[in-house]
């Protein structure tokens, strides 16, 4: 019997989608290796019995709930280490996201366990789990086996599908925890600050996305002009680098710590195509990339790639789209 422990992140009373993916995946795998899927939640009053019980519909049988600070990794490491010590789960599974990386890695140190990150597929081999992780710019897949009693698997964002398979409420168990001194030495001052305008990109059919290759904040005008030319249900999106630089609003960000989109057309202008960006847009139906660097990784997964200067191409393309729409 090997149980799987997952971590479920929440914010303002809502459970995180990637965490629900991890619970669904954990329940599926646990059935294959003859165990159960459990979940850990850490937070305040918004973690009601009702909310925790809903994890049962994604396949969790038990939910371990601890009172503690939200949005920080180290308190969760304490809780998960205690739950594993008392209940002996053989695997810990995390959906994509920044906290999952921190918690999974810290838990590996605490429990002397093996950890694999950026995992895109997990499968059962007998009573064991085997994790697959793309490496070297997704050109190879490395297969991880675990030994030593606990294996830690950190998924890539959107790797695990949400599946409502369970039909009963999960049992909620409160965990009494005394936090490690260092876990209380980081304090959240402000969480979830939205920087920039509140724009909506998730419903768009056509997205023109801009990256560092636009050169400066004003460069986004080129992307906005092109999106306007397409008209209808089109919008402008951005990479993490340019959002951190303050060129474009956070609400328009694609990728690891931003939005996941799958429009009919994703036109990437001046975006190199780092994995953290790719995970947020690779399901787009058609991907067109314009980049001056012929070696940019984005050309590896675009349907149409244009090697050239976007300052020359975008204005002419905008005019041509307008002309075509007018015809």
């Amino acid at each position, binding site marked *: 019997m090997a149980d799987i422990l997952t971590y479920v992140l929440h914010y303002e009373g809502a459970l995180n989608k990637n965490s629900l993916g991890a619970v669904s995946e954990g329940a599926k795998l646990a059935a294959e290796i003859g165990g159960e899927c459990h979940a850990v939640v850490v937070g305040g009053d918004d973690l009601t019995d009702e909310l925790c019980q809903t994890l049962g519909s994604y396949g969790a049988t038990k939910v371990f709930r601890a009172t503690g600070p939200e*949005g920080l990794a180290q308190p969760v490491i304490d809780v998960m280490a205690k739950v594993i010590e008392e209940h002996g789960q053989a695997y810990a599974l995390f959906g994509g996201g920044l906290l999952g990386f921190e918690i999974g890695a810290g838990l590996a140190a605490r429990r002397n366990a093996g950890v694999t990150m950026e995992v895109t597929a997990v499968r059962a081999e007998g009573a064991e789990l085997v994790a697959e992780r793309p490496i070297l710019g997704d050109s190879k897949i490395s297969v991880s086996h675990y030994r030593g009693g606990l294996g830690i698997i950190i998924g890539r964002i959107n790797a695990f599908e949400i599946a409502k398979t369970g039909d009963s409420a999960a049992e909620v168990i409160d965990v009494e925890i005394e936090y490690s001194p260092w876990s209380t030495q980081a304090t959240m001052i402000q969480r979830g600050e939205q920087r920039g305008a509140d724009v909506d990109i998730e419903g768009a059919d056509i997205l023109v996305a801009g990256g560092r290759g636009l050169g400066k904040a004003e460069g986004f005008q080129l992307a906005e002009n092109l999106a306007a030319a397409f008209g209808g249900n089109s919008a402008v999106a951005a990479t993490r680098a340019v959002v951190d630089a303050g060129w474009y609003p956070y609400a328009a960000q694609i990728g690891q710590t931003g939005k996941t989109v799958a429009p009919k057309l994703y036109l990437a202008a001046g975006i190199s195509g780092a994995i953290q960006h790719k995970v947020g847009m690779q399901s787009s139906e058609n991907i067109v990339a314009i980049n001056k660097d012929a070696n940019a990784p984005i050309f590896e997964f675009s349907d149409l790639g244009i090697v050239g200067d976007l300052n020359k191409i975008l204005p002419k393309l905008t005019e041509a789209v307008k002309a075509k729409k007018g015809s």
Partner: protein
Amino acid sequence: MKICVLVKEVPDAAVEKRIDPSTGRMDRSGEKNLNPYDTHAIEAAMQLREGGAVEVDEIVAVTMGPESAIRALHKAVSLGADRSLHLSDVSLAGSDVAATGYALSKALEKEQPDLVLLGQQSDDGECYTIGAVVADHLKMPSLTQVIKMDVEGGALRCERQAEYGYDTVSVELPAVISVGDAINEPRYPSLKAIMGAKKKPLDNVAAGDVGIDPSLVGADGSRVQCGEFKDPPAKAAGQIIEDEDTAETVEKIIAWLDERKLI
């Protein structure tokens, strides 16, 4: 304040990365660069020193790796570190991320830093994770992917982008902080600094010198076995246009979009 910066040598971006079929490990023979993210960590240490909010007595670059990793330390020193520490031992070869973090934490214990800085990810593998492993062993608070960091009394006020927007977190010292590339623009080393880098003190330590338990490191001490590789499902290559005549290029793009009914 003493700052230790963890650095790593990674494959040059221009060198094709591959798995050595005889060992099942990454072929690291083409390596010669300091991990680009680490240059942001050194720059962050330099800005703390120059910022004046706290007195920085020493910046020490620390790495684990074979003989060639010394080049990463020289680069780190040319960018501002005062001296460096090279943890090197044949018993460490093949360590997974948890074992590597453990070994580094033992080297750091000896240095007793007030702050450990590192880049949020390496170009060649372990993403986001090594800082959290090191922090748990050192029993220090930790934060990764930090893009702004200010000293406030005995703590650091840090900002980062997380799942739901930007978080601001106060982290008491001593601490382990990994930084993102948006935190600063690393300076270029002066010719004098590059020339002088080899003359700065460099300590070599072996696993036994820092009390590393040999059963917890190396390929045998690692809890993840990953000597097995396979190819991802083949994906049809996309069409590539080299822009020579922009009018013609745009015509081709329009035709491509039109064919797929995207306009």
